């Protein structure tokens, strides 16, 4: 186990900067999630850490060793690929043992480590099967096992859950997290799914367009987003953005963009800012709660109501804002105010 450090790391392809000035410190034993939309540079950053992409500028440190020129196999890392990349003609056992055999680990040790990993991941019955005979979930676990067995300093995971169906994804999410807490290996985990990030990460690094927008605990990102992008990216349903002018309210920090999460936009009652009136644009009834999209002037806000709400599209609705839930962002830079 070791800490991982990115210092002003950049990656340039021709004239395009996939990653720019990326600086991040990952603490020993931490589960760090890199999250962002497609093209944000998160996978590129991970691949540079793995040694699968050359680093254009800056340095990456694993432990206290600079690894820019170090080959992947010397970095003492293990990676779980998005498509699992299992060796198709080998048994599960051989897949798990592959990396160890390449490193000349004695076969008794190999056997022990493989069987241990198989036990932890419930792969015992599958050891003699070929990847072609495995289900998606089983293949995913073998991919995890292959990394586990190596006992590396750092785990790298590149969207390992995206090929699983929703139910399996939720289940496996928890399993990966539990596993990591058990072995306490530093883990860098890439995903585009912010729910995954929020539920799994010790800390989350939000990336956008090659740049690190904010890094912090899930709570920090949720409650104190550093800019408009992070505010809108984290949390589901997303934050609503509007200006005081658009909805006809006078709010502090004139001219700033206001962000507010649905749970801070409620049907009108005393103590809220407002009342605001608007027309219902959509209704998302989820049983225990309902999200109602409301058009107010030129803005659209999402209102949170408990239980079932009796609204139809086109209805007029009256609602208010919880003051403590308001976040202000600069209209020009998007930075939090």
């Amino acid at each position: 186990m070791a800490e991982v450090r990115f210092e002003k790391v950049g990656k340039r392809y021709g004239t395009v900067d996939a990653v720019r000035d990326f600086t991040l410190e990952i603490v020993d034993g931490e589960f760090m999630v890199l999250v962002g939309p497609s093209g944000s540079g998160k996978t590129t950053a991970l691949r540079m850490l793995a040694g699968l992409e050359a680093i254009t500028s800056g340095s990456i440190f694993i432990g206290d060793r600079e690894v820019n020129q170090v080959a992947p196999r010397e970095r003492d890392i293990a990676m779980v690929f998005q498509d699992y990349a299992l060796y198709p003609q080998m048994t599960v056992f051989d897949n798990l043992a592959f990396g160890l055999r390449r490193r000349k680990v004695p076969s008794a040790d190999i056997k022990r480590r493989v069987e241990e990993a198989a036990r932890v991941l419930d792969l015992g019955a599958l050891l003699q099967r070929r990847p072609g005979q495995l289900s998606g979930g089983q293949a995913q676990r073998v991919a995890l096992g292959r990394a586990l067995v190596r006992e590396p300093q750092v785990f790298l995971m590149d969207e390992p859950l995206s090929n699983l169906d929703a139910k399996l994804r939720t289940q496996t999410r928890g399993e990966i997290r539990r596993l990591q807490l058990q072995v306490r290996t530093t883990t860098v985990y890439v995903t585009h799914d912010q729910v995954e990030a929020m539920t799994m990460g010790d800390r989350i690094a939000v990336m956008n367009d090659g740049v690190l927008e904010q890094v912090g605990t899930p709570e920090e990102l949720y409650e104190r987003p550093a800019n408009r992008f992070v505010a809108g990216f984290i949390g589901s349903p997303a934050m609503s953005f509007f200006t005081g002018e658009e909805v006809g309210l006078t709010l502090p920090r004139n001219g700033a963009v206001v962000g507010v999460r649905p749970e801070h936009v409620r049907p009108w009652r005393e103590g809220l800012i407002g009342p605001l009136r608007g027309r219902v644009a959509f209704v998302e009834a989820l049983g225990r709660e309902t999200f109602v999209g409301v058009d107010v002037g030129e803005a659209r806000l999402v209102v949170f109501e408990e239980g079932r709400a009796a609204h139809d599209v086109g209805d007029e609705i009256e609602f208010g804002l919880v003051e403590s839930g308001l976040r202000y962002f600069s209209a020009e830079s998007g930075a939090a105010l």
Partner: protein
Amino acid sequence: MAVAAAPLEAAGAASRDGSPGERPPGEPRLVGYLYLLPAFAVFAGFVLYPLYRAAYISLWDWDGLTAGTWAGLDNYAEVFTDEALRSAFVHALILLLFYAVLPLLIGLLLAGVMARARVRGLALFRAILFLPQVIAMVVVALMWKMIYQPGEDGALNRILGWFGIEGRSWLGDFNLALPSVGLVGTYVYFGLAMVLLTAGVQKIPTSLYDAARVDGAGPFREFLAVTLPGLRGEIAVALTLTTIYALRNFDLVYITTHGGPGNATTVPAFQVFSRAFESGQVGSAAAVGITLTLIIFVISLGINRLAERSA
């Protein structure tokens, strides 16, 4: 991944040749040359170097034994001036009809008919239709030499005899020899065209045919409007392959007619051989070989360019 993947792809392609500083550590770099070396060495030594040598030899007037004299481009000019060479290239063009066009027509006929049907047992037909291509051309040539045998013994003459048609000396007749040889080419390659085009036509969505039907198109119109355009790729492949085979038909000519009678069936491939090893005109032979290569290049590129553009 669409938006950023595009510039990544393009830029990745730009650095594909491996400029320094772009290589991840541990990725095979110089070792690539090592893997390549044995294959390239043999290839360079026994294809590239001889090609260069052929170009060199073609500029000389040489009999293969004594010293040669410089000829410049004379040997190439001969392609147009020499009777035998001119005939050879003309014959090659004619043979194209038999090797490429005829099989293509047969293939198109089948494709047109099978456009909407799903053929079962195509595997068996395919295996049979491809068989002629698998047999050594020397053997095919011999087979047909026996079929074409003059007099009453030749199989073809015998069959024609049943219909009261007089038998001929197919390979010995000045006018019949070339078509007779050509038909052998048709025999070998019609299977290729048939299979290629039938496979291609089954990939054309039936909805296109339905739309044409609804628009009131008759079968011929359908063929022109839907089948033919849809088969563009396969036609290109079929034409490229058969054209090249048509130009490289040494074996067939050597065994059946040796270029004769006279020069009636001489072809460029045969001219290369006879000039280099029978009549001591090595420089000329080399020139013919190079010309043949250039023609093959041009035709291959041309057909594929045409196919791409109209796609």
